[in-house]
């Protein structure tokens, strides 16, 4: 069964389930798989970290204090923490978890947006500091992606325009 994971959402899955995300641009999809337990998680994140986005761009905006949620799954940093919490609750072992990254493109290269690149580099760092193995990537460039994550095997397939 396929389950679509939209922007800003996290889903966990066990056994014979596929998690999918379509039309990924600058967003970054992070997948976790514990192949021994056949448990997976997928986060469709939009921005690297809260402190790097809204607060930095809007230092005087009061909303930064009231809108913050530590489980805000739109940001790679809090999403990775939340994924770990949920996948470990299902029995995954951190030392077995294998991570993959998909996305982080810039759909309009003429605009020199750094969001995609920031998403990739921040997620890599965060995974390293959390002690999670990064085993595969399909990131960067200027093309959109759609992906499927087959949870029992951990295989991720990515489709691009051409």
């Amino acid at each position, binding site marked *: 069964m396929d389950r679509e994971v*939209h*922007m800003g959402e996290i889903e966990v899955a066990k056994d014979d389930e596929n998690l999918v995300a*379509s*039309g*990924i*641009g*600058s*967003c970054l999809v992070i997948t976790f798989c514990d192949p021994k337990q056949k448990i997976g998680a997928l986060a469709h994140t*939009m*921005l690297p970290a809260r402190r790097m*986005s*809204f607060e930095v*761009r809007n230092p005087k905006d009061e*909303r930064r204090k009231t*809108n913050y949620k530590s489980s805000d799954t739109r940001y790679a940093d809090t999403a990775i923490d939340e994924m770990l919490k949920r996948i470990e609750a299902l029995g995954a072992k951190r030392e077995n978890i294998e991570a993959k990254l998909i996305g982080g*493109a*810039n*759909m*309009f290269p*003429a*605009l020199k*947006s750094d*969001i*995609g690149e920031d998403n990739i580099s921040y997620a890599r760092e965060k995974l390293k500091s959390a002690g999670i193995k990064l085993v595969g990537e399909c990131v960067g460039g*200027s*093309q*959109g*992606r*759609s992906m499927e994550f087959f949870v029992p095997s951990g295989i991720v397939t990515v*489709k691009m*325009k051409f």
Partner: protein
Amino acid sequence: MQEKLKEINKQAAMNASMALSKLINRPVGIEIPRAEVKRVEELRPLLGLGEIVAGIYLPVTGDIKGAALLVIPKESAFTMSDLLVKRKPGTTRKLTELDESALKEVGNIISGNYLTILSNILQVKVIEHLPSFSFDMFGAIVSQIIVEFARKVDKALVIELEFVFKPEILKGYFILLFEVEQFKALIGSLGEA
């Protein structure tokens, strides 16, 4: 809101039709069958997230800050390219630089005319910037624009377009995204509480 928005749509469509007809030297009608405010999450079902579209994005600054995006589904973009660059109908199967440039010009015409009328009727200063082009998945294009504005955008004005190149009618969407406070003010100016 309906009356002012209808007036903006009518004038913008008329001016854009004239400009586009002049550009390609044959009559083209532009019609706006529907225009409505949607939450950004509701943009997803407009077209499939993985559907290939031509996206022409123009950043907007001035009294209202945001983005204007013209979306033309793949097959319509191919047909429009045939007409714009005067190829035999059904010839375009891949977009060249010339096609991209012609489609960007269509984006300029739609956006320029719409924003000019909007700014005149609502008395706001609007500056549109150079268009950027992407021919890719609808979800990837629209999500990047939403993400650029992070949490500052939550609603969009979605304007359905029909380009009437007789006998062809090609569909597209013109989407305006503005920052939350400015969007509220804009909707307020259009008469909706």
